[in-house]
């Protein structure tokens, strides 16, 4: 069961239109719409709602002035860090100044969304437009400020050092220095954000449905903002149509305002984000400028690596500086970079906020490291794979301490992996050896093809914890609950696989609930490739408690030593004696001493039916009624998955179009619970990576207008743009957790830009230092390289 590629248990519902996504709930609820700033930076001079007041179906209009303290205050800074000296967050509705196009200024509630938009359209906001700060380098130049009280636009500045990198670079036999650029993209789930709130005036309680990656986080934040005890707020993540990071931010302005309005109005209120809002009102990621200095020896071994990063975090920092921390700490990948110094400056701009998007800073770090590897290989005339191999951490060197502090505040110590073996696998899968001839043969036909390679290590399963609750009821059904949420990862399948394997029950008997605070109140959320590691292990531990209890009770009933018992197909029996058996459903009955028999089965547990000593309490000391158990998994530190990708691309000599001919992935996420689901995660990640490498960017003009805020112009790949992906798996179990698993959710996306850059560089013989790369971009590079030899790269050995 564990480890088998079984079909998903959530599919029958989702395939027949029976899914319940946020906007499928609350039929008849009032609809909210928002007036958003059309300017990147402006002072609000006045808001005139008069023209909106006679819109049919209007219920309410709110501006900042209408919000009580708590509700109207700046949103929380979720992840404080000592280096984030100038953290700033937005208010749910802007008070004086708006700092990006799309920032909410007023909320409208009406009978339906059409009418709410009618009213929103009629609200007049007078702005004094202020100069906007757009682009990382303009932010760094700081001729204008995003926040008056943040000098230099610098939100955070952090240096991490292992050894003396500048000295090591200076002393190295070979040195290179270069600049790299990565543009913005975004998570862009096909379901936008959304919130639906119901206030119960009789109970004084609030039920909120949110398309979120953390229902417990939203609950805590809402209780705090609205001044309600936690017990009066329940938050449920229904089916969620994709997250990829953007939905872990909380509480969003709308997530505070909609429940607040529902309570105030005593009516159900729902907000379903539309696509245009999502582009300007949610979050982006990726944009960085990196400057690299590297020193290395004749074999390509890095002796010193000194990286300076400018990171664009947008207008506010509600999610702290996780992204640049991840970039700077995951940058070394599977290598020993010798002395390493990384410095980042995280800067404000008048653009949409930047928070983690699948990969969460790793694609940028890997781009930096892998471009460095290719440049070293080109400089020395060595095979690119050999240079990587020369720098690998060896299998016998685990656990390997990189000497840095990771995003969870813990030391960055790799737990396990086998990078040399993985390199052999990826070379085999893509056809690395022999490619030189393939390339030459193509060239003779007038075709340009190139091969590229990229390696990464990903810290997965960050803490602090997750929990699981497992209950077997008197019908034998197993109810599993965990607090973190699902956005398509198949948790109802993989967690059931774990429970079925741990308990010895048929998987058909297991149901799994996620993301519902009514079922499990303590959780962190689904992000950082952590769900399988964290909740998977927590559920396994909870199952073991339940199993122990079941064996204890069954042992008494069967008059057998629990150590001689095992569970098969939902029945506890004495090992080697199939006649001495008791089904788990009966054990569940016995686990709950009863006064009242509510059904035939329950009679067994009533007070005149059970035996036992009259001098002992019916529930023994230290026991609880019910065949259930709860446990938590809280790791000392993250577990480190790894992978290598390779691609063969063809570039059109005339049109500069770039086509991926082959794409291969080798991935190691420890023990796989369900290989088919792991593979699906990788496929999806690679497709997003292809988007980031060749198609997707956020195009801001100098006034801070987002010029491509639609699916017409933000070019997410269709099926026609994604190559066939070949995958291979390596399983080096994690020694850190009971199941030996590592995370897999983000892996696919991480090295794609690096791999495509490497392959295009190989095909073209032109330095590729910026991504994404469009045909027009390649066309311009060709023209520049034709007159500037510095942009050309010597042809590499394969």
């Amino acid at each position, binding site marked *: 069961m564990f480890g088998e590629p079984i079909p998903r248990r959530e599919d029958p519902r989702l395939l027949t239109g029976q899914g319940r996504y946020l906007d499928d709930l609350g039929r008849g609820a009032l609809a909210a719409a928002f007036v958003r700033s059309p300017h990147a930076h402006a002072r609000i001079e006045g808001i005139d709602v008069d023209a909106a007041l006679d819109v049919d179906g209007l219920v309410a209009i709110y501006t900042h002035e209408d919000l009580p303290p708590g509700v109207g205050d700046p949103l929380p800074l979720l992840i404080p860090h000592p280096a984030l000296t100038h953290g700033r967050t937005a208010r749910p509705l802007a008070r004086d100044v708006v700092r990006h196009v799309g920032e909410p200024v007023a909320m409208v509630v009406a009978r339906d969304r059409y009418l709410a938009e*009618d009213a929103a359209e009629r609200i007049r906001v007078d702005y004094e437009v202020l100069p906007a700060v757009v682009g990382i380098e303009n932010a760094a130049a700081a001729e204008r400020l995003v926040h008056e009280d943040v000098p230099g636009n610098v939100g955070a500045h952090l240096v991490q050092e292992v050894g003396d990198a500048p000295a090591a670079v200076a002393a190295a036999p070979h040195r290179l220095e270069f600049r790299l650029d990565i543009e913005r993209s975004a998570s862009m789930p096909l379901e936008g954000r959304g919130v639906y709130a119901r206030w119960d005036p009789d109970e004084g309680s609030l039920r909120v449905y949110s398309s979120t990656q953390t229902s417990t986080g939203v609950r805590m934040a809402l209780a705090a903002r609205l001044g309600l005890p936690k017990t009066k707020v329940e938050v449920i993540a229904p089916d969620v149509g994709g997250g990829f990071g953007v939905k872990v931010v909380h509480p969003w302005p709308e997530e505070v305002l909609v429940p607040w309005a529902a309570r105030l109005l005593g009516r159900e209120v729902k907000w379903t984000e539309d696509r245009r809002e999502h582009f300007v009102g949610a979050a982006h990621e990726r944009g960085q400028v990196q400057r690299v200095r590297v020193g290395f020896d004749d074999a390509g071994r890095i002796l010193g690596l000194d990286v300076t990063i400018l990171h664009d975090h947008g207008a506010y920092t509600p999610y702290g500086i996780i992204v640049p921390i991840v970039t700077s700490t995951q940058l070394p990948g599977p290598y020993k970079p010798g002395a390493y110094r990384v410095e980042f400056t995280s800067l404000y701009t008048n653009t949409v906020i930047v928070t983690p998007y699948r990969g969460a800073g790793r694609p940028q770090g890997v781009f930096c490291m892998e471009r460095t590897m290719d440049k070293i290989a080109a400089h020395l005339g060595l095979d690119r794979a050999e240079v990587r191999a020369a720098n690998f951490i060896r299998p016998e060197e685990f656990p390997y301490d990189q000497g840095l502090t990771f995003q969870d505040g813990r030391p960055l110590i790799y737990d396990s992996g086998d990078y040399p073996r993985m390199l052999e696998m990826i070379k085999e899968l893509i056809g690395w050896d022999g490619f030189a001839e393939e390339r030459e043969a193509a060239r003779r036909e007038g075709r340009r093809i190139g091969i590229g390679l990229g390696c990464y290590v990903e810290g997965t399963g960050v803490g602090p914890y997750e929990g699981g609750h497992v209950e077997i009821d008197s019908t034998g059904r197993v109810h599993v609950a965990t607090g973190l949420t699902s956005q398509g990862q198949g948790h109802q399948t993989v967690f059931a696989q774990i429970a079925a394997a741990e308990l010895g029950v048929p998987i058909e008997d297991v149901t799994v609930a996620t993301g519902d605070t009514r079922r499990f109140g303590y959780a962190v959320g689904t992000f950082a490739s952590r769900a399988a590691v964290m909740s998977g292990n927590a559920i396994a531990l909870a199952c073991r408690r339940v199993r122990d209890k079941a064996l204890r009770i069954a042992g008494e009933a069967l008059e057998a030593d629990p150590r001689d018992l095992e569970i098969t197909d939902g029945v506890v029996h004495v090992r080697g004696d199939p006649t001495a058996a008791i089904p788990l459903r009966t054990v569940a009955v016995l686990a709950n001493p009863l006064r009242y028999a509510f059904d035939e089965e329950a009679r067994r547990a009533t007070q005149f039916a059970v035996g036992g000593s009259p001098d002992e309490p019916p529930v023994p000391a230290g026991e609880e009624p019910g065949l259930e158990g709860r446990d938590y998994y809280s790791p000392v530190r993250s577990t480190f998955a790894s992978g290598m990708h390779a691609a063969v691309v063809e570039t059109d000599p005339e049109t500069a179009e770039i086509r991926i001919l082959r794409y291969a992935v080798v991935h190691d996420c420890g023990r796989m619970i369900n290989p088919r689901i792991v593979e699906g995660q990788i496929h999806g990640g690679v497709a997003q990576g292809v988007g980031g490498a060749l198609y997707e960017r956020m195009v801001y003009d100098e006034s801070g207008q987002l010029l491509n805020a639609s699916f017409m*112009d933000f070019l997410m790949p*269709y099926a026609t743009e994604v190559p066939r992906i070949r995958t291979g798996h390596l399983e080096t179990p994690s020694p850190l957790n009971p199941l030996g698993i590592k995370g897999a959710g983000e892996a696919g996306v991480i090295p794609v830009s690096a791999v495509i850059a490497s392959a295009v560089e190989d095909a073209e013989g032109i330095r590729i230092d910026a991504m994404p790369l469009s045909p027009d971009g390649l066309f*311009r590079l060709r023209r520049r390289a034709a007159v500037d030899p510095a942009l050309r790269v010597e042809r590499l050995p394969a």
Partner: protein
Amino acid sequence: MKPPPFDYRAPRTLEEALEDLAEGGKVLAGGQSLIPLLNMRLAAPERLIDINGVASLDALEVTAAGVRAGALARHAAVERSAEAAAVQPLLRQALRHVAHPVIRNRGTVVGSLAHADPAAELPAVLALLDGHVEAASASGRRTVAAADFFTGPLESALRPEELATAAFFPALPPRTGTAFAELARRHGDYALVGAAALVTLDDDLRVRAARAAYLGVADTPVVLDLTGPAVQGQEGRPPGAVDWSAAAAHAVARVNPGGDIHAGADYRRHLVGVLTGRALAEAARNAPPGGT
């Protein structure tokens, strides 16, 4: 992203539609360009005249003279029509590049012409073929030649009270081949640049005429006669041996495209040359040696 309110008319006959139009309003046919604009509230017409119920308008008439598509002839219907493809193959060649199959199920050929998007395929086709649009209003009917129909980006010669009732694409002359080539960022996106080409052979099966029309390079389709550079200096060569680079260079020198977020002006101009060569070569290959 919900449409603003509008007054709605659903005429059942052409006469009713023209009466409604006389009072003012925007025509809704396939809606694949109009409804996105409504949803984004970039258009807010007072009145929408939904002609989808006017049964007579969906005719697709194919004669030896050409293909006449009624105002409700969907892209998909024209694309599927073997008769239309036989008389004027360029239509199918171009329609395959119009957005995605599902959009083509609803979108109409005439609607695409009336929308007059400078990056759309069909205006260039109509312009290259010297086709025309039939327009009707309560006060009369007229025919507008392609050369006069496209007046600017998203602007046509249609008067506010006029309905484009049909478009006519003349049949191919004998010994003529066509081709359509375009480059889009993703499959199905609006083209960065596109070229429709038409090559006619003479009795000796040598190139007699070569023309091309371009989309994405100006506010309206650009039609170029490339016969001179295509023929000069290579008289007598069979079409398969013609070097089209002079024609391509000629075209490049005569277009002045703009740049946008997807492609700069230089790149677009460069593509005009590449696509000219490719489309002309294919059109020449497609020219049947005898008759049509």
